[in-house]
């Protein structure tokens, strides 16, 4: 084939294209924290012989390069757009549902029997306590009709029933409550894996029913929208920048004088909400300041001597604002971070007579913080 005059340009243009990125990378300022992905980016790896030998050094360098690559957010969205264009309906284990819903996949559960064993053992040791287990189905169950057609899913309800049938203490099934509530209010955020305050409210009603507590009616709350710009974890995972953000609502009761003690941080506040997160990406942390090993909440308007312990994942942060209306003191333990014996804690706090174990169906099988309870 005869040589053509433009051919020369090909190599030059492509080389310049590549070298531009190399140069921008070398001379750009590196950020430490990605707001969009809500995580710290990889740091430049530490050089040592053992790191080199084990391959950690080169792995670390590769992570560093990928994390700090120029226009990272732009490239992530190019990837997402490509995936959507070629017909993918699931990105990074998140289904792209209808009505702008992103729905986290539910992996085949594997730890059901272990969880049952640990919880029953725990109950055996502490059976003077009124113990409740609430496993919350996630958006994939409640918003099932919004999934792409034919999406292969495992049933959270079946798994929950399998666990409940073997648990020796009280269990609370909120599936139907959430499904019917979902007709009126969104029970789940569209772009985040958590439930909304509405979802938590409907679950709170079920908790009250099961424990003979008279719940506060929805009309007794002042419902406030605190942000209309919440782009949650599922948004970050998929990088679908065109979806409209979620709103966060909170329910404020008439009486709300609290002393909130973040025990291991030596910090005491008078609110369940942390304003500063509303300006950040991670807005769900507005509820009770993200994850803490131990929080105690004293309701200064109540003097009934009742105390509740909640063992939980981050879903509980939305339901606690309802539960605090019925207890003088609520203790909140996240066993993923609380490294002491919970049984000892109960012995040291003999006023605790009610206990709620609250997990969503995804984390209960995957984070396994629950297994350290015993």
């Amino acid at each position, binding site marked *: *084939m005869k*040589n*053509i005059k*433009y*051919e*020369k*340009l*090909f*190599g030059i*243009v*492509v*080389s310049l*294209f*590549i*070298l531009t*990125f*190399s140069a921008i*990378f070398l001379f750009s300022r590196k950020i430490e924290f990605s707001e969009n992905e809500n995580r710290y980016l990889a740091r430049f790896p530490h050089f040592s012989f053992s790191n*080199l*030998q084990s*391959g950690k050094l*080169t792995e670390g*360098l*590769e992570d560093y*390069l*990928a994390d700090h*690559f120029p226009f*990272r957010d732009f*490239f*992530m969205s*190019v*990837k997402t757009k*490509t995936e959507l264009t*070629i*017909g*993918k*309906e*699931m990105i990074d284990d998140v289904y792209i549902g209808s009505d702008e819903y992103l729905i986290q996949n539910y992996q*085949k559960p594997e730890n059901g029997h272990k969880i049952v064993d640990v919880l029953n053992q725990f109950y055996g040791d502490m059976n003077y306590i009124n113990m409740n287990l609430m496993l919350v189905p996630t958006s994939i169950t409640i918003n099932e009709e919004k999934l*792409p*057609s*034919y*999406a*292969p899913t495992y049933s959270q309800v079946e798994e929950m029933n399998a666990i409940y049938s073997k648990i020796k203490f009280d269990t609370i099934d909120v599936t139907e409550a959430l499904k019917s509530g979902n007709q009126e209010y969104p029970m789940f955020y569209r772009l985040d894996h958590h439930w909304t305050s509405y979802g938590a409210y409907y679950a709170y009603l079920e908790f009250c029913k099961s424990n003979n507590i008279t719940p506060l009616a929805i009309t007794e709350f002042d419902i406030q929208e605190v942000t209309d710009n919440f782009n949650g974890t599922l948004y970050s995972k998929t*990088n679908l920048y065109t979806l409209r953000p979620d709103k966060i609502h909170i329910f404020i009761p008439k009486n709300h004088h609290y002393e909130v003690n973040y025990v291991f941080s030596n910090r005491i506040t008078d609110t369940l909400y942390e304003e500063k997160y509303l300006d950040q990406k991670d807005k769900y942390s507005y509820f009770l300041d993200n994850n803490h090993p131990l929080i105690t909440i004293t309701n200064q308007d109540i003097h009934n001597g009742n105390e509740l312990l909640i063992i939980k994942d981050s879903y509980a942060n939305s339901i606690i604002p309802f539960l605090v209306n019925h207890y003088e003191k609520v203790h909140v333990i996240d066993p993923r971070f609380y490294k002491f014996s919970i049984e000892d804690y109960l012995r040291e706090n003999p006023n605790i007579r009610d206990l709620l174990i609250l997990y969503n169906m995804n984390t209960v099988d995957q984070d396994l913080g629950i297994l350290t309870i015993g």
Partner: protein
Amino acid sequence: MVFSSIPFLFFFFPLFLILYYIVPFKSYHIKWKNVILLVFSLFFYAWGEPIYILLMLFSTFLDYNCSRMMNRYQEKKKRKFFLLLSVVINLGLLGFFKYSDFLISIFNNIFHLEIPLLNLGLPIGISFYTFQTMSYTIDVYRRDVMPERNYFTYLTYVSMFPQLIAGPIVRYQTVSEELYKRDITYANFNSGLKRFIQGLFKKVLIANNIGFLWTTISTIPMNELSVMTAWLGILAFAFQIYFDFSAYSDMAIGMGRMLGFHYLENFNYPYVSKSITEFWRRWHISLSTWFRDYVYIPLGGSRVKRIINIRNILIVWLLTGIWHGAAWNFVLWGLYFGILLVIEKFVLKKYMEKWPTWVRHLYACFFILIGWLIFAFDDMSLLTSYAEKMFGIGSHGILDSTFVFYLKNYFIIILVAFIFSIPVYPWIKEKLSHKKVYYSAFGFVLILLVYLLLLLVVISYLVADSYNPFLYFRF
């Protein structure tokens, strides 16, 4: 380091190319371009294997000296001694690192022992470079090539990063002249660059995408697999392994071209084959010709009694199977193809010629897919269980919603994979080359934009840290 990675694309390779093009080919008796190539190749290897690089240095040093010795002595006995020395040590090293655990477990099984496994990591690319160095010593013994005088030139040949870790298996005679004198031209640079980008596209956008489908399907519990899902999974694996492997060859050939080397083609649209015999002429050509020239023909090839010929074919395919990995399924995989080839050669051949073309394609595709099924599972019980599902034994029906979901999610990728599995691209290129517009500024800009767009999407997948496996860790 793999080619489809950010460190390679944006730092290693550009820096290498700049230096490679700046230095003179030769001055003061030093071949500077080779020096740059060697230094970067060693760094490239050490990036993933900082310790095992010593093994490669030892191996090449041994072969270099054995070949020198063969050249010095003319008596056949002495020459044979040095050949055997080289072959035995090379195969010994390969065998030790690759097969010792497999042999120990067989031994344990037979004698009910519990000898602990060594759990050695397999040095990357050892199967490739061992075969390269062996071809060299054998060729020197046969006086097909003159031995290399300079150790570093020889080391440059073996360690050249474009083809070091995943082939093609480049023989010394292919590049021996180019190690001393090669055309480093703009035309070569451009055509090599295009080939390289094509390889990147095949690896990152086709192979990784469809490979993820296979990974997903292979983790579905066996009792939930429908017949169609099982077949979809194997089809995905077949596409993944072809696009991944041939992409590495494309990138190697492309980079070689950019440096002035001309490696031989390694794949020639294997899935358009009309028989298994044809498939193996089109698949991993550098490996099958290696076995043909260094095992099959020395054993007598086909110019022997039929029974010996059959033996030869089975030996070659048994070895081909074992070369791919130390597990029973690879043994089975090799023998499976050996037996198919024997049947084709001695029984089917005369009938097959009368079959309609589409029947021959269907026949070849079916047996190729069954081959990949054997290749995909190194656990025999999983293999049989998966095979049962493909033929409806204990499967979750013929067709289920899982299948429909994955088919619609991957339909376009499968279509693209299919199109690039048949020679559509060369056909289009040929058609275009007769058109004037192809040579116009407009045509040039259009082609340039297509390549830049492909690069952009490839980069986005790499930055997003998507699924990007390296499949040849056990070769």
